């Protein structure tokens, strides 16, 4: 993929090329193959390239023949071949074979509406000298990032915040409201980012910058209006199969080799199987394994490897591997995280890059779109429960949900029932499905210091989110409401960014997502709910439609969410100490006090509990990861100081850990 950046001045001064270069240098990891800048008076564009399509011709920033339109673009337009043919019929002529040129000429023909024709993933900016404006756009689901800020004299945009911070007039401050939202919803509510004054263009939105004014609008949205067609299961299955196969075939279009992630779960097994059975592309797969068997999925990976006959490689993660790479991971996420799961993804993309691949196919999106998450099952059970809350049998249903979670298995029915305690006002909340997660996450705010707690006391994150819900939301089936919340909050805010784009691009690898092809997404949102969740059988239609491609053991395997070791990555409970100096340093009273976000005494109690092996629950693990990642982020991006892992404590001396 690539990195983009740009400056649009409103003070009639010319943009300085050195500033563009400073910005784009910070995005070298996104585009190591080439870089370029283009200054046209008060507007400057910059680009760092990861060459994938039209290796020799697709140089950027790119201009039309007459120089009136220029573009910097991160992403892929997979249907560029078809669009080029259409434009040629209208008389347009092309200099290159790149999808970049297709965007430029589609914009020349259709203006901002051009994006409705694109099947792909993108963040781009077009400088339109005819209209003296800059048109920016981001793909429908938030696969590619786009952040921006405005200072007194200019509007600046980029793929990542670090490029904006390369400019001396951009202020670096934590956005406390965003922090409050992240410690509720796992991500700030768009357009906020973790940094004050820095915004992100939300998924499915476009923007025009003209004479210092911003106009932002939504060009596409999820819609769960059910189809009123009376179709058989097989009919739906046939359409799904052909949409997915086509989506995968489109995403193999590249002038370089394409690999695939193979986690052992259903979704990546499907994408790999489609590549094997419906294309001539060689199949090279990659996965992550864990030393800690509680997280490891190698057995299932091996089944698919054997079934498909793929050339497979793995990277093995120990606790220390995760802790060691974590500061680098946060440098890329540019926001705090509540799980260490991004870290193995970073190590995985490193393996991909070292194996000479620049592109991987991956299965993200299937759970949101086809109803795969346990959260959806939980929600169904909780609703069922709320009709007869004293039932003794129902708590036992919950044990069926989580066969892989030891702690839940150990619960008595009385406690399970309390665990899913449903209050009157919750059952009617639009957020019913997500309240357990958000309530649990919000508990972490106990660690905020008293000043911060006071400042946040008047805020109501749920009300802020509620304000962003579209009017149609209330009319959707409750299962679809849960899917929607997941698709607009956790998916772009965490899954596609912190675990997805940022981890892959950190090693100059581009991810491609067949399940997020917009025709697949639109198809799935019209599906009758019973074909998404049939009883408690998740992703029902998906499994049915692809049953000939996927072994039964994989189809029937209980869903295992992708997880990685948490607190253990940072603390060795055998030796009762931190694994790395940076952990001690950033969780020290001095460092916590200096950043003014978390209470030193509270964090001390937490680290003691963890070190002594007493912290077994999700909450304590999330707290540790959330606090540590926030401290790392502030150190790196607010203070501009490196977090080095040179000094390892003796706990890491044992290579067997």
């Amino acid at each position: 993929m690539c990195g983009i950046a740009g400056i649009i001045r409103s003070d009639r001064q010319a943009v300085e090329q050195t500033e563009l270069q400073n910005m784009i240098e910070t995005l070298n990891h996104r585009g190591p193959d080439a870089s370029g800048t283009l200054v046209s008076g008060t507007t400057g564009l910059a680009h760092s390239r990861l060459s994938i399509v039209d290796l020799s011709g697709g140089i950027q920033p790119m201009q039309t023949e007459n120089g009136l339109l220029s573009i910097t673009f991160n992403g892929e337009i997979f249907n560029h071949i078809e669009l080029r043919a259409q434009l040629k019929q209208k008389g347009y002529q092309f200099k290159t074979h790149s999808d970049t040129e297709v965007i430029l000429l589609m914009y020349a023909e259709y203006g901002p509406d051009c994006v409705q024709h694109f099947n792909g993933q993108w963040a781009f900016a077009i400088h339109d000298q005819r209209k003296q404006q800059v048109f920016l756009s981001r793909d429908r689901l938030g696969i590619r990032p786009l952040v921006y800020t405005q200072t007194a004299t200019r509007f600046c945009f980029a793929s990542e915040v670090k490029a904006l911070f390369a400019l001396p007039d951009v202020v670096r401050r934590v956005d406390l409201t965003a922090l409050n939202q992240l410690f509720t919803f796992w991500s700030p509510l768009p357009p906020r980012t973790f940094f004050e004054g820095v915004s992100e263009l939300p998924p499915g939105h476009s923007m025009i910058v003209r004479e210092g004014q911003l106009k932002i609008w939504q060009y596409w949205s999820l819609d769960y209006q059910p189809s009123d067609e009376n179709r058989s299961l097989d009919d739906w299955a046939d359409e799904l199969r052909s949409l997915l196969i086509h989506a995968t075939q489109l995403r193999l279009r590249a002038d370089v080799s394409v690999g695939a992630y193979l986690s052992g779960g259903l979704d990546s097994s499907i994408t790999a199987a489609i590549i094997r059975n419906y294309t001539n592309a060689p199949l090279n797969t990659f996965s992550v394994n864990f030393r800690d068997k509680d997280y490891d999925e190698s057995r299932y990976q091996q089944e698919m490897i054997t079934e498909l006959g793929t050339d497979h490689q793995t990277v093995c993660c120990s606790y220390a591997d995760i802790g060691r790479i974590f500061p680098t991971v946060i440098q890329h996420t540019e926001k705090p995280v509540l799980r260490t799961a991004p870290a193995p993804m970073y190590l995985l993309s490193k393996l991909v890059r070292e194996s000479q691949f620049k592109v991987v196919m991956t299965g993200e999106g299937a759970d949101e779109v086809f109803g795969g998450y346990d959260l959806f099952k939980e929600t169904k059970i909780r609703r069922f429960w709320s009709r007869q809350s004293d039932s003794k049998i129902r708590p036992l249903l919950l044990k069926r949900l989580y066969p892989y979670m030891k702690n839940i298995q150990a619960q008595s029915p009385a406690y399970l029932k309390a665990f899913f305690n449903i209050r009157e006002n919750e059952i009617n909340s639009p957020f019913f499905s997500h309240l357990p997660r958000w309530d649990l996450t919000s508990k972490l705010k106990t660690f905020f210091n008293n000043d911060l707690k006071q400042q946040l006391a008047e805020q109501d994150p749920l009300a802020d989110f509620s304000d962003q819900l579209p009017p149609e939301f209330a009319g959707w089936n409750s299962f679809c409401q849960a899917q929607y919340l997941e698709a607009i909050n956790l998916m772009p805010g965490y899954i596609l960014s912190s675990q997805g784009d940022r981890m892959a691009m950190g090693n100059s690898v581009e991810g491609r997502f067949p399940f997020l092809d917009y025709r697949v997404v639109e198809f799935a949102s019209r599906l009758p709910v019973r074909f998404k969740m049939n009883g408690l059988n998740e992703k029902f239609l998906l499994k049915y439609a692809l049953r000939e491609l996927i072994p039964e053991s994989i189809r029937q395997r209980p869903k295992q969410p992708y997880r990685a070791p948490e607190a253990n990555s940072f603390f060795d409970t055998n030796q009762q100490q931190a694994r790395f100096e940076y952990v001690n340093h950033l969780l020290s009273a001095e460092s916590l006090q200096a950043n003014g976000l978390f209470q030193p005494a509270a964090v001390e109690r937490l680290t003691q509990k963890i070190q002594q092996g007493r912290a077994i629950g999700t909450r304590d693990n999330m707290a540790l990861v959330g606090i540590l990642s926030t401290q790392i982020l502030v150190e790196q991006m607010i203070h501009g100081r490196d977090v080095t892992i040179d000094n390892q404590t003796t706990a890491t001396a044992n290579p067997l850990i």
Partner: protein
Amino acid sequence: MNSIQSDVRNFVAENFLFGEDPESLQNDDSFLETGIIDSTGVLELVAFIEDHYSVEVDDDELVPENLDSINRLIDFIESKLKELA
């Protein structure tokens, strides 16, 4: 404060009350209602009781009636110790 009460209050403060003032926890506050201890936290409580007092907690004793507040914990521990005696 008798020693069981202070042991239990200290354990809860050290392991569950991170950012709150320990004084704010009343002996009859429900852990579940206040959200201080969730159902996995209960397992940590049970581990504490078993280790600290050398008693065994049966599966069917894992109920809020026995574990869901400081007072209930004290009563439960006292009754287990009486059993031993």
